[in-house]
């Protein structure tokens, strides 16, 4: 089945230790998104790629970076995680201007 896959599902890191979250898709969608979702809140868009074009949200901290080496994969890098970065990170994909489909998320814990 075509799907959006996120690895790992749970990630524990130490304060200040860089961490990378992974997203892959078999839908062949050209847009990939990264959202941060804190408990009982709506997802907050961090950035998205339209093909290779990177689009950062104005209020996304510099601590968050992303890479998209090919159509299928997209990575979220958190350079120096703080306690406030503990959250669920959701990856989503879509064709341009079409419905977004979400992955299962990676829950990040910062110790």
């Amino acid at each position: 089945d075509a799907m959006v896959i996120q690895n790992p599902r749970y990630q524990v890191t130490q304060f200040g230790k860089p961490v990378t979250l992974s997203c892959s898709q078999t839908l062949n969608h050209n847009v990939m998104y990264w959202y941060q979702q804190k408990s009982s809140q709506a997802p907050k868009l961090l950035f998205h790629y339209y093909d290779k074009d990177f689009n950062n949200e104005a209020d996304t901290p510099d601590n968050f970076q992303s890479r998209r080496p090919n159509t299928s994969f997209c990575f979220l890098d958190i350079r120096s995680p703080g306690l406030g970065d503990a959250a669920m990170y959701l990856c989503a994909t879509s064709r341009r201007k079409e419905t977004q489909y979400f992955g299962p998320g990676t829950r990040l814990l910062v110790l």
Partner: protein
Amino acid sequence: AQTVTQSQPEMSVQEAETVTLSCTYDTSESDYYLFWYKQPPSRQMILVIRQEAYKQQNATENRFSVNFQKAAKSFSLKISDSQLGDAAMYFCAYRSMNTGANSKLTFGKGITLSVRP
């Protein structure tokens, strides 16, 4: 800028009954999409239903239907014959259809639906 408002943080429904979740939005655009997403306790966000603003007919998907009132900027979700598996957080979301706009979703704050057996 567009906004989406879900004013009820929680609702409860008896199994097999019908429940309606409310959503209002604000926009100056005429062409857009509206969505309801469901996020069960396992946390994967699942698309429930989608409505194109240019369509007058309300979207339906099995037990899920919407009441789309464009002039009133209202987009409610009706769940018929509620099942235990419907218990989840439900998000209403808006997306512009305008050329040049990115595909950004604007979410409401969500509503937690519980289903009583």
